[in-house]
């Protein structure tokens, strides 16, 4: 508990000071990083702690985004828009989760993929809410007493939600609920034998992750002012999946690093070539072939080698690394 508050405070300080050391363009990109980090963390929760491989996590992101875009035609207060995004995507997660969680592994993956593709086709084909053209909006974050219009205020706005999300995820992971979830991932049979309602744990995590992804989708609209059916696409689901894998599966902060690396890489490479999709695919293959624990684990290993003095502290961390390795192999 103490540790999570300290880490959250450090993150908050980092978010607060960053705008003073970087250029406005990077700031704009970092806003996207923060939004995608929330999205990636939510997927990281169900994948890294729940063992649920989802290829359809973009469904919740898209639903959150469309909720804000559609509702913003009637109301502008974020106190209504963002909770609505969270609740509606949460409800959708509950409904689809009840079907999907009955199955494991590949089946789960295929069902989530199919459900998301259904939403993609539906939003593209239906005339409701803009169809294939998407839906534009001019909504800005409105706190009730002031409207946030500058890029800097938008950055702080998303930053606040990022820190809150991180904090709540930490709490979730460290709670008995989160521990039970991890137990289910590592040895489902044993948890059943111990009398745990295994599916309940997975559903709760799935709904929590869905709501969080919905929040990320809602925030995304404040940045881009535009909701398109592409938000539901396999491409989007793959993007967030690769972020989780680049950063490190089974950690909370890994997906955040993954989101940062991915978005900077994407922006940098897109300026040089149109073949981003090809490079992303190759990146995927390389990650599968050579990567085991993601960048975060690499950093931890380097840190361990550079600072051999702090053995006791590193042993603590080392323990989590070993845990990670086992779950990585077990999958």
């Amino acid at each position, binding site marked *: 508990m103490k540790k999570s508050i300290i880490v959250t405070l450090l993150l908050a300080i980092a978010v607060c000071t960053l705008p003073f050391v970087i250029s406005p363009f990077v700031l704009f990109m970092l806003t996207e990083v923060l939004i995608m980090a929330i999205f990636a963390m939510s997927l990281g929760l169900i994948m890294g702690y729940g063992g649920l491989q989802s290829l359809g996590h973009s469904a919740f992101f898209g639903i959150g985004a469309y909720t804000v875009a559609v509702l913003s035609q009637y109301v502008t207060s974020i106190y209504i828009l963002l909770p609505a995004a969270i609740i509606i995507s949460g409800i959708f997660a509950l409904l689809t989760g009840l079907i999907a969680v009955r199955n494991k592994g590949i*089946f789960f993956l295929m069902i989530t993929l199919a459900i998301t*593709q259904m939403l993609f086709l539906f939003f593209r084909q239906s005339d409701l809410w803009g169809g294939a053209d998407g839906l534009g909006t001019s909504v800005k974050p409105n706190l009730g007493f002031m409207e946030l219009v500058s890029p800097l205020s938008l950055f702080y706005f998303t930053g606040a939600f990022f820190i809150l999300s991180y904090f709540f995820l930490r709490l979730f992971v460290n709670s008995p609920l989160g521990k039970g979830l991890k137990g289910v991932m590592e040895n489902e049979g044993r948890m059943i034998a111990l009398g745990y309602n295994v599916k309940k744990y997975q559903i709760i995590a799935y709904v929590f992750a869905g709501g969080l992804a919905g929040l990320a989708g809602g925030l995304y609209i404040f940045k881009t002012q535009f909701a398109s059916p592409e938000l539901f696409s396999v491409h989007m689901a793959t993007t967030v999946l690769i972020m989780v894998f680049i950063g490190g599966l089974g950690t909370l902060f890994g997906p955040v690093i993954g989101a940062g690396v991915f978005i900077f890489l994407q922006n940098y490479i897109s300026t040089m070539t149109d073949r981003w*999709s090809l490079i992303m695919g190759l990146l995927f293959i390389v990650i599968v072939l050579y990567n085991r624990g993601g960048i975060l684990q690499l950093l931890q290993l380097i840190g361990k080698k550079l600072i051999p003095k702090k053995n006791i502290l590193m042993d603590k961390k080392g323990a989590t690394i070993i845990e990670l390795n086992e779950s990585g192999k077990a999958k």
Partner: protein
Amino acid sequence: MDLFIVNTLSGLTYGMLLFLMASGLSIVFGLMRIINLSHGSFFLFGSYVAYAMVSRGMNFWLALLLSTICVTVLALLLEKFLISRFHGNEASQVLLTLGLIFVIGDITLWIWGGDFLSIPVPSILDFSFAISESSFPIYRLFVIAIGIICAVLLWYFETKTKVGMIVRAGVDDMEMMGALGFNIKLIFTAVFLFGAALAAIGGVLSGPILGMYPKMEFEILVNSLVIVLIGGLGSWKGAFIGAIVIGIIDSFGKIYLPDVSVLLIFVVMVIVLMFKPTGLFGRVES
């Protein structure tokens, strides 16, 4: 009434194209627990290669044969050098084949561009026949026939031949087959290539009907996955029944419920999975 027949036949045509794709997907999964997402790329790549040949004046049937061979070679390379490294590791396989689908999709986009392309119908089959007042292209009937022939061949292959027996036993217990001295790696590669060839044939045959455009592999892939889920993983019979169901629902849905037609097949999937989580012909997982 004749409209009903025409719609049913259109649905069957689409269903048979999906069957060619889904049966390979299903058998490969059944045998080796590999869900090969790049199977959709085989479909797409097959039709683009055939387009390249036909547009340079080659005979349709020769193009069909050559592009099937091309795709089979591609599948052999992918299986040999990438996919076979991850036997038994489902998560890595999914990610790997997901990467492959993006790579192959983008390479085809690079070579052939993003425009809608289609293969002309071969001249022998380029006419229609009349159903009272409506007419129906004979080429589509030909596709239905090919689908049924493939299903019959699969049935014969599975039940009457020794190779089919080995594959069937392999689906049930791969390790035991290995212990009995069968070369399971070879069997698996053969089945993988066979599935890829079926997907390529489906892709080429779909060229005159569905055409080719970027990202079509995802649509075909997801529809095939739905079919495989409905029919039950590992069973080509399930794929056959599922393909017919999905094809007909798709065809009638587009006419009577155009706004929500894309949702219909998923509604069917959800209903089937609610009552039978393993699909219609799937076995209970041990």
